[in-house]
């Protein structure tokens, strides 16, 4: 994927990072992603529906996520829900971005922007 190559150098848009992160350990559907992101950010990031689906659409066409069948348990869902799974390129990109963020955090610590880990 051409986009993944360039993405390693470019900062990843926040929305895409959040979505990939939400999908890192399980398949999710749209609202599930929103809830997960809201929960992780303690309600600070609430993905709007248009933003969310534009991003998903983009990620689908870039091959970062794929659509999968929902869970088999029929009680757990409206059949219209679409579930998404992170793809290999998506995971690679997520890792790259996490590492980039980590390098930034390390740098921030070195510049005492952040307290050094362990003392807090």
């Amino acid at each position, binding site marked *: 994927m051409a986009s993944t190559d360039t993405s390693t150098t470019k900062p990843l848009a926040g929305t895409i990072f959040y979505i990939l992160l939400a999908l890192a350990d399980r398949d999710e559907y749209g609202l599930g992603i*929103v809830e997960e992101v809201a929960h992780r950010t303690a309600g600070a990031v609430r993905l709007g529906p*248009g933003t969310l689906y534009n991003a998903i659409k983009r990620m689908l066409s870039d091959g970062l996520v794929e*659509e999968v069948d929902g869970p088999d348990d029929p009680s757990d869902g409206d059949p219209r829900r679409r579930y998404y799974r992170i793809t290999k390129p998506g995971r690679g990109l997520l890792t790259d971005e996490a590492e980039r963020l980590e390098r930034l955090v390390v740098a921030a610590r070195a510049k005492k922007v952040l307290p050094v880990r362990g003392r807090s």
Partner: protein
Amino acid sequence: MSPRGLTGFVYRCYPASFRRDFGAQWCEVAAWHRRNLAGETFGRLRYAAGLLRDAARSLPVAYAVAMTDRARGVRRGTPDALPMNGHQPSGWDGLSHDARHAARSLRRSPLFTLAAVASLAMGIGAGTAIFSVVNAVLLEPLPYEDPARLTIVWNEFPAAGLARLPLSGPEVQLLREEPDLFQSVGGIWATSRSVVRDGRPETVSAALVTPNLFAVLGVRPHMGRSYNAEASSAPVPTGVLISDELWRTHYPGATELSGQTVQLEGGTQPILGVLPPGFEVLFPPDGGIPERIDLFLPLPWDLSVLTPAQHYIRVIGRLAEGVDLFSAQQRVASVAQRAKEIYTQLASTGDQFTLLPLHADAVRNARPALLALLGAVGLLLLLASANVASLMLARTTTRAREMALRASLGASRRRLVQLLLMEGVLLTLAGALAGVAAGHYAARVLWTLRPVGVARIDAVPMDHRVILFAVGAAILAGTVFALAPLLSMSTLRPANALGDRTGSASPQQHRSRALFMSAEVAMGLTILVGATLLMQTLTKLKQADLGYEPSGLVSFKVALGERRFPTDAERAGLAAELERRIGALPGVQSVGAGSHLPLKTWANWAEPAAPDGVPESERESFYVDHRAVTRRYFETIGARIAAGRGFAESDNGESDAVAVVDQAYAARAFAGQDPIGRRVLASQYRNGAFTPTWVTIVGVIDDIRDRSPSLPSSGQVYLPFAQSPRWELTYAVRSDRALDQLVGDIRRGVGLAHGDLAAAEIMVMDALVDGALAPTRFVVLLGLIFSCLALGIAAIGLYSVVAYNTAQRVREFGLRVALGADRRDIMRNVLGYGVRLSIIGILAGIPAALMTTRLLRSLLYGVQPHDPLTLAAVAVLFVGVAAVASLGPALHATRIDPIRAMQ
């Protein structure tokens, strides 16, 4: 249901493709935000602000993406690209593109495709099968030369209420002499003869025929020759013609005809010719001509030498070139008039001739049943089409959004209709192919099940008419259900459909579906009512009082050749000896014999038997079959003596002439007075001729249904065989032993009675009754198959419509549950919908069924076409089917989770 208010407004701002792909989920997320903020300060305001901010950020991207996709034409998750208006492929390319596209689309809904193709295949298959039979019986020409010109002439005695009687020799001669009416007129009378084979006698089915009969039919012997067409100096030609089967069994290995003879009792006859294999004289089942005749003997050249009052010759006439049926009918009527003038004894009968096409008459018994079945086929076909229509309608509704999307992406309505029609064409083709294949196979199975007398043709041809029928049926079916998508397309509003995330149906579509469904129920009801009435007919016929007890009876036939046993006393003595021998067999309870048994139609010989006191000029109107029976006949067959006595040992050739009549004759001849002791001028067979003799009635028996289980007796006079010893006897043996155990004993017993006698046609009497019921049973069987198909198709249809309706109302049901509705109410609601549809159909179907069953009247017995119980029972059955078909969707509806349903 689309979101309302601001959410709805924002939602509808997104491009259609976005809403199609993500609409439902977008709404879900928006609803979550709204719920989350609902409890907070300025929650609503903050929700609105967030929604607008989100829209401002995402809308441009969404539109950009939609436009790029549209330019590219292909996009993941979108329908297959459909050529846009203006640059769509045309001609063959366009067609094949559409076909491929439609096939893909059908493949994506395998259940729908399967249900539709199966419905069509059932309808077209049943149609092809029945039509193949109808074609073979009613449309395929008879296997004679120029068969359209062949006619049958029957006698009618309106004064006696008798119809379809044979003609007398002089009457046939008059028909022959009528100028320019017939090219030739032939006659036939069936009987039996004893043929000696390897020194042993054998009774074979024989017929006396006019020497020109084969020329009339245009049939040439495949070996040897027929009789010369012109009269020769001898009054009766010599020689016989035999069937191919008799030739092969009696003359195995013979290759030359010359010098071959048939040894009949009392003389040896040269074999003139062997008829082609499979040759039959095709006659209506009530015509008195058996299917298989092995031996053809000549009648005199000049038929006017025969007795005018003896009506036994069945007439086949070949109309002269250019004579049409109508004028021929007029002219035979005038011949009958002349016959009455010449032979004054015929005057009182009101003697009339009826001329009918041979083919139409030969199949007259099968025709009403076959036409009824063809009608059922038509209904089933319409039912199947309506089912596919209703399936398609449901499908096009769920696809409304797809269609709307296509429309919004630039496909013209015409284009979309073309696409839907192409799907219809593919479904029809698949259904027709499967149907014709299944139908052809089914026709062959039906043909093996057909009863004797439905038709006498060897095979069901798959000819151009059958193919044309199948194509016609397919086109009809296709046209009917092509209406469905057209109907739904006409109501398609892209904006509505896109704005509606469930793709629910418009009221009009609801109505069309309900209409199709009711029509299905109505047609199914008609088929079922017809089949039920026929079933009751069969039951009633089986229960009908025949006037005797056929079960436990074994019958066989013995020819008492007059040349071998020329005197009356000899034949009467032989009959008594046979009765004694057979009666002494182990396990035999009783033995009796008659000139012919009930339901054995072709030994009949009609002669007048007028009661005393009727003026001589009116005697001819009392026509009865000549029936001579032995002493224990009535007792053996289980006939009931209503008054007086049966025949006794003392009723012999020397004693007073006596007779037993049945109730029908007594009622007609003596109108309520006691018939015992009254006299009848009946024809006794004495010294080789039928001789009118005054006989005294000594007993009355209950009527015996001797023509058919459904027809009452037309009046019978029974004479003691000892006083009217005919040339053949059919024995009835009541025994507790099975047929196969008795056969050997019977053959031996007959041989012991006299070395020149042989038993033939040994069978159980039940087989005759069974044979008489076979056509009805065949029609009932087909009716049952049709009913099952109709019920099945209607059930599929009801299920799909109710299930679809339930799916559309998921949110309504969710809401109801959320508001505290009992789940049983939901269930009742869904069941009620299905039942309501069926009741509408039943109400529409009852008048249709009543009209249709009127046409069945001629097939019914013991049950009225408007039998209210039958109607009610079938209606209840349909409601039951509707309830069962709705049960699945109803249970599903009760399990709806209100939270999810309303999101």
